């Protein structure tokens, strides 16, 4: 008989995945303070639906974070500008502050693509599925985002 793997409780899930979710939120927002708000909002919603979420809850949380932070078209308009959210002095405490400063200059959608591709290591197809756009759009977003980063950081291609 095959034993089913026991699902963690909600609190166990949060404790285990919180550092990763916060780093994912940081990748989305460019700010640890904004990431904490984003993660808390997504986890509150997840808790309310915990019983109805089957399997791994992390994709649900990730999608909630992305939906909250990034609009496919215009929902960003109700988000606070990153400039207001970014912790003052934050750059003093992170590795590669120039990189983070450049990341914060990108559009939210571009940061989301980079977060999913380079932090979560998702394929272009999976990134497109999460963002609800085409693979071509993911490619162009990633290309443009990297080009902007390269320009701001004056890196050679």
């Amino acid at each position, binding site marked *: 008989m095959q034993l089913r793997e026991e699902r963690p409780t909600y609190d166990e899930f*949060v404790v285990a995945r919180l550092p990763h979710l916060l780093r994912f939120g940081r990748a989305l927002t460019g700010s640890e303070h904004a990431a*904490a708000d984003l993660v808390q909002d997504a986890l509150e919603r997840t808790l309310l639906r915990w019983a109805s979420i089957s399997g791994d809850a992390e994709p649900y949380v990730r999608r909630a974070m992305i*939906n909250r932070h990034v609009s496919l*078209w215009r929902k960003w308009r109700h988000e606070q500008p990153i400039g207001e959210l970014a912790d003052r002095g934050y750059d003093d405490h992170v590795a590669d502050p120039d990189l983070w400063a450049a990341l914060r200059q990108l559009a939210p959608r571009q940061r989301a693509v980079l977060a999913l591709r380079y932090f979560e290591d998702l394929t272009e197809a999976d990134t497109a599925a*999460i963002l609800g756009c085409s693979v071509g759009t993911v490619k162009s977003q990633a290309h443009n985002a990297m080009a902007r980063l390269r320009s701001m950081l004056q*890196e050679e291609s």
Partner: protein
Amino acid sequence: MNNLEDRLRRGLESPLAADPDDGLLGRIHTGARRRRRRRAAAITAATAVVVAGVAFGSSALKGDEHRPSPLVGSSTPTPTRVPAAVIDLAVPDADHVFALTSDSAVWLQQSDGGWQRLHDFSGSVEYVDFAPDARNGWAWGSGLWSTHDGGKTWSEITDGPGTASDYGYRVDLTQDRAWSLHRTDRGGMQLWSTPIGVDAWSNTLLPYRSSVVDMETSGGKVVVLAASEGAGQLTLLSRNDVDDWTSLDLPCAGENQAYPGNAEVFVLCGADKGGAMVYRSVDLSSWEVFGHSDLTSVTAVVPLADDRLLLLGSPHDLLVTPEGSEPVDVGLQGDEEVFQDTGGGAGDTAYLVTSRHRILISRDTGLTWSQLG
């Protein structure tokens, strides 16, 4: 993998500057309880309305599980200033300006310029819109609500589009119907509509539902933006209340986006490259060159009328018309941004809402702007 990709991965993987807050888990539970309480309070309040309705022999609410939420504004003193933390405006006509504030309350500007708090929502509301009759309206965010009495009472929609997961809503109006686009839990999109004036939502078959990214209305038609697989090309799909869908590719590929106005759709080509060609479609079957932007960056695009497009950015703001482009200054301060598409207007008057919750008003078709209040 190149150097920049390596550097990006290292940066994104780097440790947090601060350890996760020990109190976060507790705050999450508290926040979730607060959300539950808000919902329970709404149900309780709505039940009270039903009881009162039955007591007075009313049959309008009998058997209705989605009862109108209570009017709170009737006993609220009329403030004489602009409400704080405005996040959206709806301007159905020159006599009615509705404001939505970040505490999920809807306000109505009075004839003396003051504002009346009409209603507090039980959930988190991010957008509000009204039909031109100023009686029928919709609000959406963590749920979808409708009003049919000018914003005094609101009912939460709990079937049809009301079954959507959070954040998926996008509501817009054609002449006779309200349309709601939302993302399902499985990632696809659904399009619902109802005749204005009632809550009788029906589902509309949506082509390319897995690649649809947004919906607006323009010129009496529903306009859906879909991403063509592979090419990164966006396509406008449009239909009126009865016709089949027709498609129109955007005039350029890449990072370009479409901005529907009341009777037209604008597209900026090359806005991310410094300077942009502005295209317009008024029939949703072809594009025409509308104007040119010399902005090095564009932070917001606001259609003011079928012949006026406001671009915000640097080194200045720009009013684009078929007669030419004219630098303007809407008066944004520092890193202040405009909440795109949260404004509205009637006649020569136009409004914008900013990230500092200021309402900016122009009374001369967008040429000059000042702060309201």
